[in-house]
């Protein structure tokens, strides 16, 4: 047996020990590779996708690569930590530290090679699925066919062999040969509880509250200014939360004998504090990484819905024609005809309504304020199946400004309320109702009055003819095609919601896809950190439960302890991350003054569900291992 064979045997004969490390490396390679398959797809090279998308993808690839580096480094160092005793034994047998470094290096090169190859193979298997998803999210004209990704394979292979080589070098130098006696007794040594002080614990709570408070208090553009300080404060607060506040709480719980000495609590808490130093670091990392994932995905998702839903709400009709100011009536009628012609050409069947909108003089409003006849409003409303309005002869209904308008200062309704509407006979109209409606294509707020009194309002400042079309359902493609033509031939004046959404999705798709990809990478690696943390302690746990089982611990009780222990590990950091994410998304929604509750709840909820499933799976295997070891 030569030294190289020795290193080889170490890995190949002890697959379980190396499995976690191997799998997480493999996973990283796979993620990078699938991303590469996508990014190097021939369809993108023909210039079908904007340059900035390609740039975005290379940046994203870079982020994934750098993150992989740290992730593999972390996995490896935690893996090496669990093997200290083995290194101690080898030293006793006369291995020099350079030999141990060489052993680690060889092992890593072997694992790295296998992981790279494995990652590429699994990546290839998933390639078609990824391309299909990408095709749907991205709205690309050409379909992303499956291709044999030679370039992606080469890039991935070379990148990761370099990565593993660097990490192997790096770690084998970092691997300090501590005192031999410490190596040999490493499994019995605690790293100790982090020191905790009441002051710092209070500071942790204070920082978090301050951060949250600020994030929730600021509005509009202030959010941008507050972002960096709040992020810094919250990160520090989170760190202190796990290193100080949690230790402090555990101490307090431990000092309370009524709690600490109650049934299995003793086992649970003593272990928690024994591992607190390692745990605190992992918790912090996981919480921050997950927060990044949650916020990134949440804001991308939210922003997407803000863009699309906002546009959709503001433009409830399939097609809208609004003339430019000071366009002659003849020209307008011709252009409306042109729209009709295009719709016919594309075989779009649509219901059409036209109306003349009269704008009246109003102090402080350029271009005047719209005062609409109730009959016009009701005709348009009928098209959308909205309720008609019937203002009395002595009143005017105020319509609030549209949601899409970012509001600064007073709302339109407040301004309109202060502006008295006088008829020619001097009568002032009452304002009894303010309604929110998107029926008329006017975003700045307007009045609706009874048709009878409309003529008494005086001469309008200007009048323009507007037309809307509502296409029947089930002809999406024609509508989009017609929209494209309209936008080409009558830009600005016509607006086709379906085509606009199509364009938004097309531009936004890649960003969403890349963001989702990176977010998921972060989230899954956070999960792997937890997995490593848990399984590093597996042997210690086996030992502990074996000895406790001897003095009489039923398996159900063991299960309870493990349950709580694992649940704490899995949910403490994620819960913190969820709260962080919720606060971040709330702040985001206040920036746009757009309600993101549904989107946040959906994103955070799905992550929570995934985490619960992950927890159940890991717990099952952990318990299985323990059961085998303890045999109670």
């Amino acid at each position: 047996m030569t030294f190289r064979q020795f290193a080889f045997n170490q890995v190949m004969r002890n697959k379980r020990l190396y499995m976690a490390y191997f799998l997480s490396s493999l996973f990283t390679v796979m993620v990078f590779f699938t991303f590469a398959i996508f990014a190097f797809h021939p369809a993108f090279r023909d210039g079908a996708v904007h340059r900035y998308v390609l740039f975005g993808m290379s940046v994203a690839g870079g982020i994934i690569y750098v993150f992989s580096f740290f992730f593999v480094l972390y996995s490896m160092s935690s893996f090496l930590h669990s093997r200290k005793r083995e290194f101690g034994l080898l030293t006793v047998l006369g291995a020099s530290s350079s030999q141990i470094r060489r052993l680690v290096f060889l092992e890593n090169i072997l694992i790295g090679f296998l992981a790279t190859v494995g990652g590429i193979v699994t990546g290839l298997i998933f390639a078609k699925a990824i391309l299909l998803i990408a095709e749907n999210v991205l709205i690309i004209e050409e379909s992303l066919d499956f291709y044999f990704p030679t370039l992606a394979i080469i890039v991935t292979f070379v990148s990761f062999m370099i990565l593993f080589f660097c990490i192997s070098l790096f770690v084998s130098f970092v691997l300090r040969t501590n005192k031999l006696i410490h190596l040999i007794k490493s499994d019995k040594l605690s790293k100790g509880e982090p020191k905790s002080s009441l002051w710092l614990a209070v500071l942790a709570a204070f920082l978090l509250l301050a951060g949250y408070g600020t994030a929730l208090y600021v509005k509009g553009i202030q959010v941008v200014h507050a972002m960096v300080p709040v992020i810094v404060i919250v990160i520090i607060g989170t760190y202190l939360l796990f290193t100080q506040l949690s230790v402090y709480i555990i101490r307090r719980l431990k000092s309370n004998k009524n709690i600490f000495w109650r049934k299995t609590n003793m086992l649970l808490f003593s272990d928690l504090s024994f591992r607190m130093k390692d745990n605190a670091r992992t918790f912090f990392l996981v919480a921050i990484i997950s927060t990044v994932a949650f916020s990134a995905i949440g804001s991308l998702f939210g922003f997407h819905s803000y863009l699309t839903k906002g546009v959709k709400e503001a433009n409830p009709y399939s097609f809208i024609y609004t003339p430019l100011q000071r366009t002659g009536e003849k020209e307008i009628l011709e252009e409306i005809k042109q729209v009709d012609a295009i719709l016919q050409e594309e075989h779009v069947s649509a219901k059409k309504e036209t109306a003349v909108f009269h704008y009246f003089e109003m102090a402080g409003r350029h271009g005047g304020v719209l005062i609409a006849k109730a009959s016009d409003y009701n005709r348009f409303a009928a098209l959308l199946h909205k309720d008609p309005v019937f203002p009395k002869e002595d009143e005017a209904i105020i319509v609030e400004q549209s949601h899409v308008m970012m509001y600064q200062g007073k709302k339109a309704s407040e301004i309109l309320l202060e502006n008295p509407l006088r008829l020619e006979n001097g009568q002032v109209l009452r304002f009894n109702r303010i309604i929110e409606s998107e029926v008329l294509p006017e975003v700045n707020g307007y009045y609706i009055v009874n048709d009878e009194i409309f003529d008494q309002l005086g001469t309008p400042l200007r009048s323009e003819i507007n037309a809307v079309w509502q296409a029947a359902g089930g002809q999406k493609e024609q509508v989009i095609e017609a929209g494209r033509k309209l936008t080409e031939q009558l830009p600005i004046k016509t607006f086709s919601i379906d085509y606009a959404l199509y364009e938004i999705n097309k531009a936004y798709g890649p960003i969403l896809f890349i963001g989702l990809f990176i977010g998921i990478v972060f989230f899954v690696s956070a999960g792997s950190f937890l997995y490593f943390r848990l399984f590093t302690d597996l042997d210690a746990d086996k030992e502990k439960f074996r000895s406790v089982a001897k003095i009489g611990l039923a398996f159900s009780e063991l299960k309870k302890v493990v349950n709580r222990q694992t649940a704490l590990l899995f949910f403490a950091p994620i819960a913190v991350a969820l709260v962080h994410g919720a606060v971040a998304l709330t702040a985001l929604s206040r920036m746009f003054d757009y309600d993101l509750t549904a989107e946040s709840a959906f994103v955070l909820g799905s992550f929570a569900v995934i985490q619960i499933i992950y927890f159940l799976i890991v717990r099952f295997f952990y318990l299985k291992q323990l059961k085998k070891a303890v045999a109670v």
Partner: protein
Amino acid sequence: MLQLQNISKVYEGKVPFRALTDINLEVEKGEFVAIMGPSGSGKTTLLNIISTIDSPTTGTVLLDGKNPHQLGKNELARFRRRELGFVFQDFNLLHTLTVEENIVLPLTLDGVRVKEMKERAEKIAERLGISSILKKRTYEISGGQAQRTAIARAIIHGPKLLLADEPTGNLDSKASKDVLEMLVSINKQDKTSVLMVTHDPQAASYSDRVIFIRDGKLHSEIHRGESRQAFFQRIIDMLSLMGGEGRDFSAVRV
């Protein structure tokens, strides 16, 4: 051959603890020495210091006139794999390797040719009666076989000094007897010095000399003269004389 001069060991910490005080000890070439003492008396600490696993707070260890604690990292590693052999209570075999691979591990680390390793492993295995299990993995063999494997690993490179920490602690009486007889034969035939820490008076009686330590200090020593049976009796007597009763020497070390 082995000289300990004024060895003291203090464990720093919240409560500093003096594990060894002024130990002076000499072991001749080819001598078989047993170290006995109650739990916590410092036996294992002493062995760890000799084996360079732990370092003394003061005092010097000389092996053939050289102080291994002053060696550089790589020299120390070479020293361990050429001059020393270890046998542990819990065997400490690598479970990733087969019995044979475990045995040749020190030679592997030293970069010996494969053919030579193979020959030496076979020779030693035959001598220790483990030829039939060479291809087995460590979890497929019994405790006695595991300890014999560990002994084979400890002597394959022909060390000057064989250090054994409770080598019979985990074995039944039959396996214990085999292991001890093996140590004696290695000691007598190869002229390898053996230093063994043990609780077991029976095990100690196989040695040439027993050194008793208590609370980190040398207490006394007795030489084997006549028969092993009489030597065993004197060890028992000494143990009771040391103030402990027979039952102080629990079978399991803490």
